C-alpha cells in the first residue's frame, strides 16, 4: 500500500505581491488578486499590478492556463503573450463584489462560523481552494482566534455569505500543518455520506 502524499497548502495572501517572471528571466508584473471558480474551487488566474511601491493595477491578467509554474518566490510564465485583458478573466465591477475576504461563513444549518481572513489553496497539478481561514465566531468555541475550515470538492456559493456543510465544524483545524489531513478526512466523510445515500 502506498503512503498518501501530504497536501501542499498555501494561503492566497502568500501569492499576493509575488513576481511574475518569464522563462527568459524578464519581470512582467506582480500578482494582485487571486481569481477562482466558485463552483469547482479551481484557480482561474490572477489579476496583476506593476512592480513597485506606488504601482497601478494592470489592464491585463494572467489566466491559469498561462502559468508555467508557481514557485516559492515567483510565478513563472512562458512569455508575456500568455496574458489576457483583465476584463476577460474578471471584469472589474464583478471582481470588486466577488472578493470573499471579510465575507461571513455560514453552515447549511445556519450557524455563523466567522469571517474569512484568507483562503487556503492546495498546490498540485492545479491550484485549488480547499478551505477558508476565518476569524472564528463564538459558534466554534474559539472566538476571535483564526482557524481553518475545510471545503467540499464542489461549492455552491453566491452572494455575501459563504455556505459550508455543517459537518465542516468537526474538521476545524488551528494550524495549517494539520489542515491537509482535516480536508481529506472531511471530504472522505462527505463521500461516505453520498455513498450511503445511494
Amino acid at each position: 500500500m502506498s503512503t498518501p502524499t501530504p497536501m501542499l497548502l498555501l494561503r492566497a495572501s502568500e501569492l499576493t505581491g509575488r513576481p511574475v517572471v518569464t522563462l527568459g528571466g524578464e519581470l512582467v508584473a506582480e500578482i494582485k488578486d487571486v481569481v477562482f471558480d466558485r463552483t469547482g474551487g479551481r484557480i482561474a488566474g490572477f489579476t496583476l499590478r506593476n512592480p513597485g511601491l506606488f504601482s497601478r493595477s494592470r489592464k491585463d491578467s494572467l489566466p491559469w492556463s498561462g502559468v508555467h509554474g508557481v514557485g516559492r518566490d515567483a510565478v513563472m510564465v512562458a512569455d508575456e503573450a500568455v496574458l489576457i485583458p483583465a476584463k476577460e478573466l474578471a471584469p472589474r465591477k464583478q471582481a470588486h463584489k466577488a472578493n470573499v475576504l471579510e465575507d461571513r461563513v455560514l453552515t447549511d444549518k445556519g450557524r455563523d462560523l466567522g469571517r474569512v481572513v484568507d483562503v487556503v489553496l492546495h498546490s498540485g497539478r492545479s491550484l485549488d481552494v480547499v478551505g477558508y481561514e476565518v476569524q472564528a465566531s463564538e459558534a466554534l468555541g474559539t472566538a476571535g482566534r483564526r482557524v481553518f475550515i475545510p471545503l467540499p470538492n464542489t461549492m455552491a456559493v453566491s452572494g455575501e455569505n459563504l455556505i459550508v456543510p455543517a459537518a465542516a465544524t468537526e474538521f476545524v483545524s488551528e494550524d495549517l500543518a494539520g489542515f491537509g489531513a482535516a480536508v481529506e478526512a472531511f471530504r472522505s466523510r462527505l463521500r461516505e455520506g453520498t455513498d450511503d445515500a445511494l
Partner: protein
Amino acid sequence: MAWWGWVILALVIVLVLMTLAAVLQRRRRRGGVIGLSDPGRSDSK
C-alpha cells in the same frame, strides 16, 4: 506667525499627507481573493 512657524506647519501637512498615502497604498496593495461563478477563461492546465 514667524517664518519657522510656517515651516513647521508645512512639515506637519507633508507628514500627514505621506501617512495617508502610505495607508491608502497598503490597503490597495493587500489584494483580494475573487470568487466568480464563471471566470472568463478558466481552462485547466
